[in-house]
C-alpha cells in the first residue's frame, strides 16, 4: 500500500500537468506583452516570467518534458547497458576486458563534465525540440556504464548456473539461451537500474540547463526555469518564481522513494 502512494502522487501531478496544457488559453511560448513579470491574476494563476509567458503552463510543460525525456533516456540507457553487459559476459576474455575498460573510463570521469563536453560540442543552430532530444540522447549515451557493470555482474553469476549448462548441453545456442533463459532471470535487475536513471537524468538536465547547455528556449525545462532564480527583479515581485524548484524537488523525492521501494523489494 505504502509503495502506491508515491506512484499515485506522481500520476496526479502528470494528470494535472496534462490538464493544464490542454485547458490553457496560451501555449508555453506565448508572450503576453501586457503582463511582463505579472503577479497572480485570473488570467495567469501563478504570474508570468520576464517575457510575459504564463508560469503555470511553462511549469506543467517542463514537468512533462523532463519526465518524458528522462524516462525515454533511462529506457535507452538500460537497453545499451543490457547489450553491453551481455556482450562483455558472453564474449572472449580480451573483448570483455576491452569493453570493461571502456565502461571504466566512462565511470572514472566525472559525469557532468562529460555531459557538458558532449552537449556543448553539438550543433549551435539547433531548434528547441532538437536540443531537447539531443540533451536527453546525450544523457542516455553517457549514463549506461554503471548499469552495464551491474548487468555484467548479474550475467556472469548466471552464466555458470546449472540450467545454463543444461541448456548448453541440450544444444541451445548462446543467443537462444540469453533470450529464452537469461533475460527473464535478469528482469529483477532492469527495473531498479531503470528507476535509478530517471531522477539522475532529471537532475543532470537541470544542472546542464542552469549552465545554459540544456533544452533551448522557448521550450521550458527544469534547467531553464531554474535560471529564472537569477532574476532579482522577478524574485522581488512574486514568490511563484520558486514553484519550479519546489515541484522539481517534490518529483525527485517521489522518484527517490519509488526507487528505494523497488530496490528493497528486489
Amino acid at each position, binding site marked *: 500500500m505504502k509503495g502506491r502512494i508515491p506512484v499515485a502522487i506522481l500520476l496526479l501531478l502528470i494528470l494535472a500537468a496534462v490538464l493544464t496544457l490542454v485547458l490553457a488559453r496560451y501555449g508555453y511560448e506565448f508572450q503576453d506583452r501586457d503582463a511582463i513579470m505579472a503577479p497572480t491574476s485570473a488570467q495567469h494563476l501563478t504570474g508570468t516570467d520576464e517575457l510575459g509567458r504564463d508560469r503555470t503552463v511553462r511549469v506543467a510543460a517542463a514537468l512533462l518534458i523532463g519526465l518524458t525525456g528522462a524516462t525515454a533516456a533511462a529506457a535507452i540507457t538500460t537497453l545499451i547497458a543490457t547489450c553491453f553487459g551481455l556482450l562483455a559476459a558472453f564474449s572472449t576474455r580480451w573483448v570483455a576486458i576491452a569493453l570493461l575498460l571502456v565502461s571504466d573510463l566512462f565511470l*572514472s570521469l*566525472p559525469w557532468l563534465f562529460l555531459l*557538458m*563536453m558532449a552537449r556543448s560540442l*553539438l550543433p549551435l543552430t539547433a531548434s528547441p525540440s532538437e536540443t531537447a532530444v539531443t540533451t536527453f540522447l546525450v544523457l542516455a549515451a553517457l549514463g549506461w556504464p554503471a548499469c552495464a557493470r551491474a548487468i555484467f555482474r548479474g550475467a556472469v553469476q548466471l552464466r555458470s548456473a546449472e540450467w545454463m549448462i543444461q541448456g548448453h548441453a541440450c544444444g541451445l545456442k548462446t543467443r537462444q539461451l540469453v533470450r529464452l533463459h537469461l533475460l527473464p532471470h535478469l528482469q529483477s535487475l532492469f527495473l531498479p537500474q531503470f528507476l535509478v536513471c530517471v531522477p539522475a537524468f532529471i537532475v543532470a538536465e*537541470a*544542472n546542464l540547463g542552469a549552465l*545554459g547547455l540544456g533544452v533551448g528556449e522557448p521550450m521550458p525545462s527544469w534547467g531553464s526555469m531554474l535560471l529564472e532564480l537569477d532574476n532579482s527583479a522577478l524574485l522581488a515581485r512574486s514568490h511563484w518564481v520558486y514553484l519550479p*524548484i519546489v515541484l522539481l524537488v517534490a518529483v525527485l523525492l517521489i522518484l527517490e522513494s519509488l526507487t528505494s521501494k523497488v530496490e528493497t523489494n528486489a
Partner: protein
Amino acid sequence: MRLLLTAALRAGRILLLMLLAGAGTILLVRFAPGFFSDEREMDAKYAQAVQTELNQETEQAQSLRLIAIREVKSWLHGDFGESRQYHVPVAELVGARLRVSGLLLGQGLGYGWLLAFCTALPVSALRKGAQIWGLPFTILLAVPTAAMATACILAETGGPVVVLSLLIAAREFKFLRSLLEGAWHSPYLLQGRAQGLAPQALVRMHILPNVAPQLGALATLSIVTALGAFVPIEVIFNVPGLGQLAWSAVMNRDLPVLVAVSLLMALVIGFAGMLSTHDFTLEAA
C-alpha cells in the same frame, strides 16, 4: 618485488586511463560541428583567394593524426599547448587555477565527510527513527547542485564550500548509514556490547577498523562526485578555478584546455582509486 610489480601495474592503468581520456576528448572535439570555424571567414575584407587558403589550412588542421601529434608534442613539452581563447600556455592557465579548485575540493570533501560521518554514526545505531534523521539528507539529494548554489546566493548565506560539503554529505550519508548499520548489528559487536564495552570503545576498536576499506572506496566515489559538482558550483559562484575554466573551454571549444582538464581529472581519479584499493594497502603494510 611483488609490491613493485603491483605498483607498476596500477601506474600503467592510470597512464592508460589518461591516454584514453585524452584520446576521447580529442575525438569528441574533432568531430564537433563548427569546431574548426575561423572568425576570419566572416570578415569581408579577406579576398576569395585568402578564404581558399583558410579552407586549406582548416582541412590540414582537421586531420586527426595531426591534432593528436600536436597535442602529444605539447604534453611532452610540458606547456599543454596554447589556449584557443586566451592565447596563453595551458599549463599557465591551469597552474593558476589549480590551487583555488584544490582548496575548494579539499574543504568540500573534508567538511562533507565530517558532516555525513558524524550524523551517520549515531543514526545508524538507532533502532527507531533513523529515517526521520536521514530526511534532511534525502531532501538535499533531491536538490540539483545548481539550484542549491543559486539558493545560497539568494539567501546571501554560505558559499561554494558549503554547497559542495552539503552535496557530498547528502550523497555519502546514505552509503555510510547502511555500512555502519551493518557494522553495529554484526555478532562481534553484540558480543562487545554484552561485555559492557562503552560505545566510544566499540567505535574506535571494532567499527572503524572493520569499515575502513569500504570507507576508502567510498572516498574515491566522493572525489568523482566532487569533480563533477565543482563545475556548476564554480560557474554559479564565479570562482576562478578549474571548473570555471573547463566550462569556458567547453563553451569556446578550446581543445588544448579541455584535454588538459580531462587528463588532470583522470590522473586525480586514477590516483584516488589506487590509494583506496584494499589489497594495495595490505601489501604495503
